[in-house]
Structures are given as structure tokens and as C-alpha cells.
């Protein structure tokens, strides 16, 4: 399974006031909050960690069929600005994050080896859905392949696992 999540930083600033009282407490553990307040750019750290949680939640949701708002249970282990893992209910998932001027983008996998097999798809790709889970049908082999889609503001990203 794979998951992705993109944050349009300009839109996030407009939509959310992360400094609102109680906001961080609802979605970040004490350890994550420390990571945020001590970061050089706390705002970017908020969206960096958030995109990791969202990308992993997509996998968790698809694997378990459970729908819930559980940001605090998705615990970030921050190795660097671009690499980390997330622990949820005893299971570890791997994340790779890209920080650009205008967006922060995370890809998550259930196994580290999957990163090598992930390719981008473009916005014109025909995407099917079953129970809300997106997939594409390979035109040659007719095999269904899992995809993950994320869209926020000016940005759209789709990934497929080969």
C-alpha cells in the first residue's frame, strides 16, 4: 500500500491558523510539538509532520477499512526534514517528504522497498474507485494497480506502485 499528501503552503496559511489555541494539542503529540516550536521554520514543520500523518493515514484507512480522525495516534519519528517513520497501533510506516518553496509533499509506504517502485502519474490518468479507494487499470496487462491521489490548492500529485 502507498499513500501521499500534498500541502499548498499559501493555501494552508489562508485556511488554517496553526497558532490557534488548542490546535497543535489536537493533532500533535508533546514530542511533535517540541519538534515544531524548536524548528527554524515552525510553520513548515507543522505542515511537514501533518503531510506525513495524512499520507500514512491513507494507507492505514485502506488496509483496515477504519475511518477515524486519529492524528494523535499517528506518531511521527522524525529522522530528517525529508525522512521518517510513523507508528500507528504498533505498525511502522515509512515516509519521504519533499519541501519546496510553495508546497510540502509526502509519500508513504508500508515497506521501505516500495519507494523504488513508485512512479508519478499525471492528472489526465483515468482513475477508477472502489469503496473510495482509487486504482488504475494497466492498459497492456489489464491488471489493477493501486494509486494514491492528493490535491490541495494549486497542486495535484498522483502516484502508482509498479
Amino acid at each position, binding site marked *: 500500500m502507498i499513500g501521499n499528501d500534498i500541502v499548498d503552503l499559501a493555501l*494552508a496559511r489562508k*485556511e*488554517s491558523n496553526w497558532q490557534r489555541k488548542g490546535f497543535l494539542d489536537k493533532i500533535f503529540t508533546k514530542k511533535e510539538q517540541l519538534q515544531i516550536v524548536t524548528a527554524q521554520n515552525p510553520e513548515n514543520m507543522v505542515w511537514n509532520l*501533518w503531510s506525513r500523518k495524512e499520507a500514512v493515514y491513507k494507507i492505514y484507512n485502506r488496509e483496515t477499512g477504519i475511518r477515524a480522525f*486519529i492524528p494523535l*495516534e499517528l506518531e511521527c519519528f522524525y529522522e530528517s526534514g525529508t525522512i521518517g517513520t510513523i507508528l500507528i497501533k504498533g505498525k511502522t510506516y515509512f515516509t519521504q517528504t519533499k519541501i519546496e518553496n510553495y508546497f510540502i509533499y509526502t509519500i508513504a509506504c508500508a515497506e521501505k522497498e516500495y519507494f523504488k517502485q513508485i512512479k508519478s502519474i499525471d492528472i489526465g490518468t483515468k482513475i477508477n474507485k472502489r469503496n473510495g479507494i482509487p486504482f488504475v487499470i494497466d492498459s497492456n496487462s489489464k491488471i489493477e494497480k493501486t494509486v494514491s491521489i492528493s490535491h490541495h490548492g494549486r497542486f495535484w500529485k498522483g502516484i502508482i506502485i509498479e
Partner: protein
Amino acid sequence: MNKQEIIEELKAIVKPYIQNQEAFDTLTEETDFINDLKINSANLVDVILDIEEKYNIVIDNESMERMVNVKAAMTIIETQLSEKK
């Protein structure tokens, strides 16, 4: 406070965050905050904080997990309010 009153108050709370007007106009107990109203998940935190402020209640993590649709939000509000009495 009856169910209809809570629904109306909830509508006022979620209004600033919705991205699907049609689903908002036809909102029922079954309406899903994310799938139907297209509220982004970071804004779901604002909905939760707005509810806490409006009713002067605390939504614990366990309740927050269930907060994905109107029905769950109503149940949580009703339970919390009845405990306060």
C-alpha cells in the same frame, strides 16, 4: 436543546470550512464532514475547537476519533451537555 437546534448550530459552525455548498444545503445527520462537505482534515480540528468553545465542553481524543460526520458530532455534543447538568 433538541436535535434540530443542534443541527442548525452545527451548520453555523461548519459553514466557514465547507467546500461543497450543495451537500451543505441538504445537510442531514448522515452527512460526512470530509467526504460530503469536503472540509479539509486540518480544518476538522477547527470544527472541533469551535464546538468546544461554543458549548464550553472538552472533546477528548477518543471522541475526536469518531468526529467524522454530523451524527457523531451531535452525539458527542449531547452526551457532553447532559453530563454538565
